[in-house]
């Protein structure tokens, strides 16, 4: 099971691009990288998932280098509503305890 390392917290001003990097040195060949967002008093919400290179959706981009030992979640032009905890997960499938959330990165967006 590949565990992950993320910064505990980050601050950013409104309108800036935020990049949160996650280290996963022991990622396995079949592992995917998934990011979740969690607001207070809510369950986590899926943001984006990737295997290699770059993935982009309407919410974020995910950059994965060739060695896949890290990944970077990029949030363009953050707003106050992006203040949340962001979790990076690495795993092969949804089966069992392959989903290890860790403590995540608490992002605070400042006006």
């Amino acid at each position, binding site marked *: 099971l590949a565990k992950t390392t993320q910064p505990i917290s980050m601050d950013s001003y409104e309108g800036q691009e935020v990049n949160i990097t996650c280290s996963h040195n022991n990622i396995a060949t079949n592992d*995917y990288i*998934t990011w979740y967002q969690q607001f207070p*008093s*809510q*369950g*986590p*919400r*899926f943001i984006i*998932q990737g*295997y290699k290179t770059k993935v982009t959706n309407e919410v974020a981009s995910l950059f994965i280098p060739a060695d896949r030992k890290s990944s970077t979640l990029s949030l363009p032009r953050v707003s106050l509503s992006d203040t949340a*905890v962001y*979790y990076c997960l690495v*795993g*092969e*499938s*949804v*089966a*069992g*305890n*392959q*989903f*290890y*959330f*860790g*403590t*995540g990165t608490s992002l605070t967006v400042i006006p």
Partner: protein
Amino acid sequence: GAGVSQSPRYKVAKRGQDVALRCDPISGHVSLFWYQQALGQGPEFLTYFQNEAQLDKSGLPSDRFFAERPEGSVSTLKIQRTQQEDSAVYLCASSLDSGQGPTYEQYFGPGTRLTVT
């Protein structure tokens, strides 16, 4: 359609009482998960169902914890003889994925906050 729902949203139990927490997954979702989230921590896996079969219960902290999903839809997490250390938010998630192949996104409910006094 509706998302994952959980009930009750809040539960206060006296130490030693039994509690039952309910999860209604998204209709048609094969996989169902329970997580425990302590204050300031990320969710920790408790157990996983594929339809009615409990395929992994390795995260259940003790034999006081029991989960079921008898008809492959609604699930109940039961905690017997609650202890103060059981105080946490219990999250349920469901997914379309059957556990084969790539990871699919999990849809989480709002959680049940359990406080044991």
